């Protein structure tokens, strides 16, 4: 070893050979990448239990010989597709839950059609979620239900839980759920009421186009897309890296439009007036005060979440009325908290140990 330069001279020929091989592999795999489609996502066997407009209720087929009494209903964020929680075998949160003996249902969203532009928060909180809960109860014959809400699905679950505080909510689990919308600083700036005319946008566009939702997410980290493409090219010889890249990239760009009136309410009530944090949120004239929730609550937040910063999510546990409540902060970002290698190691086992003893 050359001590002065710190270079391992003996390894240089090996390194050059390895880099030449990788360069050749990049060319071959690069062509394959363009010519092939990505892995099939969301393939855990399931049945459509109920579908109405933008709302789809799935029931995943049990794989364990014996399951917990209380079923789980996952409420997906309205901006994204639910298959982030069911990527591929071995990297699927749904598969993990099924193997650990849970009975799993998911409320997932299709793109709202132009004629669904008038859907409001009331439709989501007072109609879609209660309707799905009724379907789950009827299907499994159990009254109690555990809700798991991801991101804005967590906000909808919180609103539901606070309005229907007397049940049938048995447990509530939120992933990266914002409560203090003042702390979503960049989104606040994008939606600055002095310059952002939400009425004009909705009155002209109807529903909020998915491109706009995607751009607003990407603007939070404007260099990351270009950097990730450079990293993809460097690692294109590595099949596992490419598979993972394609899964996450496909999901991240598969953004849903948002119903116009619903977006108008989110902007005015949550972004501008911060009503959820200020205990002033109401849905359809019914006060949605999260201190009314007394069911056990687990809130999982990510240390490096750039979409829902910790300060925006922190008040959830402080404000919730339950005596059995816990916040768990895990390494990772907004997506890696719930999916991928990070989640397999950290969040999923934590959730299982918390929920198992509350699901009998």
């Amino acid at each position: 070893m050359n001590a002065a330069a710190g270079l391992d001279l003996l390894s240089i020929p090996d390194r050059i050979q390895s880099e030449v091989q990788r360069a050749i592999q990049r060319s071959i795999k690069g062509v394959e990448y363009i010519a092939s489609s990505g892995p099939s996502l969301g393939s855990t066997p399931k049945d459509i239990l109920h579908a109405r407009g933008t709302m789809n209720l799935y029931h995943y087929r049990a794989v364990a010989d014996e399951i917990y009494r209380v079923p789980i209903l996952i409420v997906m964020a309205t901006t994204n597709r639910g298959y982030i929680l069911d990527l591929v075998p071995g990297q699927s949160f749904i598969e993990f839950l099924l193997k650990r003996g849970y009975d799993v249902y998911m409320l997932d969203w299709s793109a709202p059609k132009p004629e669904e532009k008038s859907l409001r928060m009331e439709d989501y909180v007072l109609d879609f979620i209660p309707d799905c809960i009724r379907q789950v109860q009827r299907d499994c014959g159990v009254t109690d239900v555990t809700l798991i809400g991801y991101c804005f699905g967590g906000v909808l679950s919180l609103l539901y839980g606070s309005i229907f505080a007397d049940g049938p909510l048995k447990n509530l689990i939120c992933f990266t759920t914002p409560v203090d919308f003042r702390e979503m600083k960049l989104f606040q700036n994008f939606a600055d009421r002095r310059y952002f005319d939400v009425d004009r946008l909705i009155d002209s566009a109807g529903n909020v186009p998915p491109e706009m939702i995607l751009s607003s997410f990407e603007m939070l980290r404007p260099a990351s897309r270009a950097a990730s493409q450079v990293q993809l090219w460097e690692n294109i010889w590595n099949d596992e890296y490419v598979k993972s890249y394609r899964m996450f990239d496909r999901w991240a760009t598969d953004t849903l439009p948002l119903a116009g009136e619903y977006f108008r309410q989110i902007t005015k009530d949550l972004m501008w007036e911060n009503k959820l944090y200020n205990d002033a949120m109401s849905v359809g004239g019914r006060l949605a005060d999260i201190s009314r929730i007394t069911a056990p609550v687990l809130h999982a937040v990510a240390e490096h979440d750039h979409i829902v910063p910790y300060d925006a999510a922190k008040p959830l546990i402080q404000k919730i009325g339950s005596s059995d409540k816990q916040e768990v902060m895990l390494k990772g970002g907004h997506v890696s908290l719930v999916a991928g290698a990070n989640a397999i190691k950290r969040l999923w086992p934590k959730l299982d140990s918390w929920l198992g003893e509350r699901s009998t």
Partner: protein
Amino acid sequence: MADKSNDPVAMWQNMIGEMEKGFNAFANQAMASPEFSKAVNQVGGVTAGAQKQLGDMMEKYLVGMNLPSRAQMVGMAERLQAIEGQLGEIKTLLHQMQRNSGAPGGSAGPPRPPRTRRPPVAGGEPK
């Protein structure tokens, strides 16, 4: 083991990572300003306005060509959606009736396991 601090490939990857972080931080600072919000929303407002005008013009053109207007298509879509919803409800009811009747193959999927599972004792099998 090779010294990563002098590996040109590792240095390049590190540089890309640092550049990404630096640019993101710089852009986030710039985007936090009211001027940015004003500029972005002005551009967005103009685009939305132009889209609306184009939509109105297309509507008039379609009426002139004796083609169904957007409102008529939306009306038809609403009716189709209502029919789809009713079909879904009928399907669910049929599945329920099949299950309740106890007929062979009477459930939507394979038989359900019993809901008797207990959480595992520390580091072991279910209780």
